[in-house]
């Protein structure tokens, strides 16, 4: 599940438009299934005018949920950036028994339904915990759930770059007397940065919208553990479509910004490669 980097521009031979049918059909399918519904959300959020939109978005509970979502997602992305890079490094450069199994299991959070992920964490860190750790209904529980579902992003984004990395530079640095720490920060890290950032951006986007894994474990306590997606869900349940749509539009704008950022990071990465 990787958001692809922009495809390099092809040398267009004659520059004649071609493949219009596939293009048109894809655009139509995407418009009907994705763009039209999203347009309905934006339109609904503005049904009562800009003021009503603003009132919904700045309602205390909405602000609380949005702020918490933003902060915890940033935290998730930051922890992922560090842990993901470390795990990717160990998976590429280290050798130990069972490495290929560990490597395959990294994708488990993508394959496991989110509701099962939430339940899974509750089993170990919830009320009936066999190790006596109960963090259910706390902010830490939300963080754990988000770290679980976003685990693969940075790892899967850094791994291929690390594999392709030229070892000669590191050897040269080592022969000139650089220690492992210097080699990592001066030689390895700079080439990994675009991949780390785009993986972290994907993790951030996922965390901002995450619902299934958080809904059971967070307890949905307003001004404490309530995240934006659960807030929207509760608004839908209490028949406040306008309020739900307004907060959804904020989430949509955030998603779009992250997508733009990822494309920009992709361009940066391919510039570094050259």
């Amino acid at each position, binding site marked *: 599940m990787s*958001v692809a980097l922009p495809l390099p521009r092809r040398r267009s031979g004659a520059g004649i438009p071609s493949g219009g049918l596939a293009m048109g059909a894809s*655009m139509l399918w995407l418009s009907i299934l994705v763009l039209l519904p999203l347009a*309905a959300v934006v339109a609904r959020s503005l049904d009562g005018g800009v003021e009503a939109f603003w009132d919904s978005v700045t309602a205390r509970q909405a602000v609380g949920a949005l702020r918490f979502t933003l902060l915890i997602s940033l935290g998730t992305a930051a922890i992922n950036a560090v842990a993901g890079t470390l*795990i990717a490094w160990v998976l590429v450069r280290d050798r130990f028994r069972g490495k290929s199994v560990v490597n395959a299991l990294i994708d488990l959070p993508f*394959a496991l339904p989110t509701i099962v992920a939430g339940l899974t964490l509750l089993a170990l860190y919830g009320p009936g915990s066999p190790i006596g750790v109960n963090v259910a209904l706390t902010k830490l529980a939300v963080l754990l759930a988000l770290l679980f579902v976003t685990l693969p992003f940075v790892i899967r984004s850094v791994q291929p770059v690390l594999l392709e990395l030229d070892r000669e530079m590191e050897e040269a640095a080592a022969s000139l007397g650089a220690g492992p720490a210097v080699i990592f920060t001066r030689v390895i890290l700079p080439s990994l940065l675009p991949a780390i950032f785009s993986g972290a951006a994907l993790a951030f986007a996922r965390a901002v*919208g995450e619902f299934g894994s958080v809904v059971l474990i967070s307890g949905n306590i307003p001004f404490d553990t309530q995240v934006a997606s659960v807030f929207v869900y509760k608004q839908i349940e209490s028949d406040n*479509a306008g309020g739900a749509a307004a907060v*959804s539009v904020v989430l949509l704008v955030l998603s779009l910004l992250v997508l733009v950022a990822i494309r920009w990071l992709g361009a940066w990465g391919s510039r570094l490669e050259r």
Partner: protein
Amino acid sequence: MSVDRRARIGLRLLALGYLAVLLLVPVALVFYRTFEKGIGFVWESITTPAAIHALFLTLEVALITVPLNAVFGVLAAHALVRSRFPGKRLLDALIDLPFAISPVVVGLSLLLLYGRTGWFGPWLAEHGIQLIFSVPGIVIATVFVSMPFVVREVAPVLQEIGDEQEQAAATLGASPWQTFWRVTLPAIRWGLAYGVVLSTARAIGEFGAVSVVSGKIAGETETLTLLVEKRFQNFDLAGAYAASALLAVIALATLGFMSVIGSRRSES
């Protein structure tokens, strides 16, 4: 060298420890908790009428969704890589939207379009068509959230193989359809298979969007993931674990397929 070695082992333990605490131990514990009461109990729990209905509904949704995604995915990937059309970059950017949007927002958007008070609500009601709170709504929501998988797996492969062979086939008199079946499809088959596996896993596991549009009617619009949630909320923890274990087994099978396809792919 010994310091280096110690550092290496330290990093290894740190990485594996993180994975164990976050991922492996919790998942293993769910399996343990599930089978604690014996396999007979688990079997009973996943063969109740509600559970069987949920399983078949989930499979039905996946069976409709995945072929639609596969066809769209190949078509869109082809358009992205091979066509020369204005708006290509826009399509490229928009295709990732479903990955970046909260599943709840997806559900809401479909409610606002096809629900009772939605844009098409009155028209649909007039013609006796019900999409929301019924199976078609679940299918539409699932297609939405799992749309990009096939495109994103097939497009890079198409890019890599280039179009020389396709052009050669066309020069030799093959129709576009023949070229596609005989040349393009065999070349992209592993990428397509990978996308299909990812898309199937997501279709089976989708929760947020489905939970908004399905109405959660037991025995009618309740998928497996919704069943897990309901059992948990009804304090039927053992039942929730059993249904979760079933989904976890599907997830592990997905990982198995992924690594098999991955290695086939790197061979070819």
